[in-house]
């Protein structure tokens, strides 16, 4: 175990963050000859301490998934840095990057495409171990242990991913991420494809694993209620920039930035009376903003969240 903490995650920002992203810019080349590249992240900075969950919330196109991919070394970094445990890990060569695989892991959104359909669960889970040179017998033992940790029956190993439901597949993906005791797991919308009750159980599993192993999560999601539930701190993204960062409870109940306010008011509450209030407040705010826009900047586009 590489856990550095005794099981209690801390809420404050530690002096030396485990993972620090500094002024990160990610650009994808544009289609066509000599077109300027498409800038997905426009100078993003975040930090994550050991054992901490940073919730990254935003709408589609905000760049939240790209930030996760940049941390994983799967997105082209144009400028800025990613530090892990005091070392720069952005722009590493393939070999050095592979050495990090035991420290930084991932759980993707879609449990249907993140597991190779042709491989058995045993093969999927033992692959990262075998790559690291774990002997076969030891890897098999570890796989049984992992299945147990994510509450899957031991005989699940012999089956193919398609025999499992969405929630169970997500458990397999979590087990794969855990196989080499990582210190950071990037979770890219890991519960948004799941049913409500399945989502609750998978979130419980995430919290329980964190409390047991002290792993840190970069938890990317579009759902404010999920982010409030799982995070210690929250960063709100919009259009490739971070608009607000802070303590989870503060950001998700009394947000400061107008965009976070809009996001919060747009999320419906499962309570008819409170939802009616929230709706009224949202409509009032929207009307106020529209009036503002008319007086200050006459030529503003309609609803800005309504982008392709």
């Amino acid at each position, binding site marked *: 175990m590489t856990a550095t903490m005794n099981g209690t995650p801390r809420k404050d920002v530690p002096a030396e963050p485990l993972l620090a992203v500094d002024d990160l810019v990610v650009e994808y080349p544009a289609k066509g000859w000599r077109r300027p590249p498409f800038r997905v992240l426009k100078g993003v900075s975040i930090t994550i301490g050991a054992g901490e969950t940073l919730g990254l919330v935003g709408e589609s196109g905000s760049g939240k998934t790209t930030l996760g991919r940049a941390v994983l070394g799967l997105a082209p970094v144009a400028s800025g840095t990613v530090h892990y445990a005091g070392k720069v890990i952005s722009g590493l060569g393939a070999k050095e990057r592979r050495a990090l695989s035991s420290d930084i892991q991932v759980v993707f959104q879609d449990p249907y495409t993140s597991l190779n359909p042709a491989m058995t669960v045993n093969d999927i889970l033992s692959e990262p171990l075998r790559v690291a040179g774990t002997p076969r017998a030891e890897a098999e033992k570890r796989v049984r242990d992992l299945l147990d940790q994510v509450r899957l029956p031991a005989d699940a190993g012999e089956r193919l991913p398609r025999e499992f439901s969405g929630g169970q597949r997500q458990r397999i993906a979590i087990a794969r991420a855990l196989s080499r005791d990582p210190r950071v797991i990037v979770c890219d919308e890991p519960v948004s494809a799941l049913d409500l009750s399945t989502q609750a159980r998978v979130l419980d599993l995430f919290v329980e694993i964190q409390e047991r192993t002290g792993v840190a999560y970069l938890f990317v999601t579009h759902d404010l209620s999920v982010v409030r539930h799982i995070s210690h701190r929250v960063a709100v993204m919009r259009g490739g920039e971070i608009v607000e960062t802070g303590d989870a409870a503060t950001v998700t109940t009394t947000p400061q930035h107008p965009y976070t306010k809009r996001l919060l008011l747009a999320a419906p509450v499962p309570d008819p009376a409170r939802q009616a209030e929230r709706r009224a407040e949202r409509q009032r705010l929207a009307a106020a903003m529209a009036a503002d826009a008319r007086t200050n900047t006459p030529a503003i586009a309609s609803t800005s*969240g309504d982008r392709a």
Partner: protein
Amino acid sequence: MTLPQSEETAVTPAVAAHGRAGLLRRLLRNPVAVTCLVLLALISLASLCAPLLTSQDPAHTSLTESLAPMSGKHPLGGDGVGRDVLARLLYGGRTSLLGALLAVAVAVVIGVPAGLVAGYYRKWFDAVSSWVSNLLMAVPAIIVLLVVMSAVGQNTYLAMAVFGVLMSPGVFRLIRASVISVREELYVDAARVSGLSDARIIRRHILPVVQAPTIIQAAQMLGLGIVIQSGLEFLGLGSATQASWGSMLNDAFANIYNKPELMVWPGVALAVTVAAFGLLGNALRDALDGTATRGRKPRGTTPRKPVAVKHSAPPEATDALLALEGLTVSYPTAEGEKTVVEGVSLTVRRGEVLGLVGESGSGKSQTAFAVLGLLPPEASVSTRQLVFDGTELGNLGRAEMNRYRGRRIAYVPQEPMSNLDPSFRIGAQLVEPVRRHLKLSGAEAKAKTLALLERVGIADPERVFNSYPHQISGGMAQRVLIAGAVSCEPDLLIADEPTTALDVTVQAEVLDLIRSLQRERNMGVILVTHDFGVVADICDRVTVMQTGTVVESAPVRELFAGPRHPYTRMLLASTLEDAEPRSPLSRIVPASIAGVTDPAVITNSVHQEGPA
């Protein structure tokens, strides 16, 4: 991007990649494939064992036996220069098969690695190799072969090797395309994060996927190789000393008036071999798709069968717009009929929004589609009663149902983009039903459509009217579809997860729109959703479904204030709104109520896959 898909809407789930063992087994179940395999095995064996099957030398000429008839010494007679036809046929098979194999081997050896590297790494290698492959494909193969043969002498195998190079772009492009599509899969990203080297990722995750298409392509290229090779030999360009089917044809052609039957033997050999390779390739493709053996019922063979249509007034007929009673939907599966909706009853009043809530596999979308009469033909549907505004819909024919659907019962789908035809302008798609149902002229329909687009909150209706679907955003597309749904002033609107694919800020606006349209037109609405926030926002009454049955129906405030069924309580407890952050959620209600005795037991998978 971030849409939790509701599996029951996907009636035929995407078939995951099949294992290779399964491919072979399916291939052997196909009689055409087995026949081809047997024929090819026999032909190869006969060519290989030529010295055992005949004692004649295929190259031995004897003028006395020119065009000799069939005899004990020459079972198939002699050719124009007295060579034994049977021996030439058997030995000729060697030349043809080996030549074709050589060509395919060269094409695969060049095409597969190049395709793998180009598809996996892209960048400059991809650009250069794609350019070279396009160039090779533009070159006329036969002319190149003629030039090669005349330049370096009449060597069949050399010609076939060159032909292999000319065929390699076909393999290259196939492999490159498959690699590019696999490379996008998340499991390849996961493998990279797991620390696998590129070589290992290609071996473990990418090669297995490109294997099958390569084999199919190879089978078809073998047939082509034999044809080209025989063509060259027929033109007299092969080696003079080597027997081959093509040179037999050449000789037979020279003697076509004296002994036309000489054409038959090489002709039959060529036709059978080439056809066998071609058909085997097709059978492989079918086996890979898994479609060949699966019979489908023709469309529209199972009309909806009301079990017992009661003509008495429905119980809540006074103000019920829609009264559905005892709906059962089942699908044929390998293990017999599988019932996905069982005995569902619900009513919608005029001006009321009914929320149909449930998790995936609860049958909520199936219920909505059954009301619309849009279930796939293999579904067997029965209702005790399906009364819409006083008319029983359960036993209407398709044409009669079409008078209701679109006109009086409208539908808003989950995926706005896939419900707009990308090749038509939005205006055209909206005007068509308005003209058809309301019998308006083109200009009237256009004016009405533009007014509607403005009504649904589109700032520049004229521009959107003239746009193609890809030019507008998802939220805009959903507004367009809502405009289309209400364009014929329906009495009932059925919306299947209308905001699930949208961002939360857009969702709020779309819900506002549905609410205001519903009030303005006093429509009844059935809103299918899994989100209790959406239910709280817009619904008047709620029907909760679990695994195909209704567990609870109540006015919205009652349901949230005091859910009676344990399943409803469990669902409400699973919402995160009021939960203490990072506190265990599932402990609140035991999982047994969720229809699973143990969260880990594999019971959900059947529902997740949907009926198929």
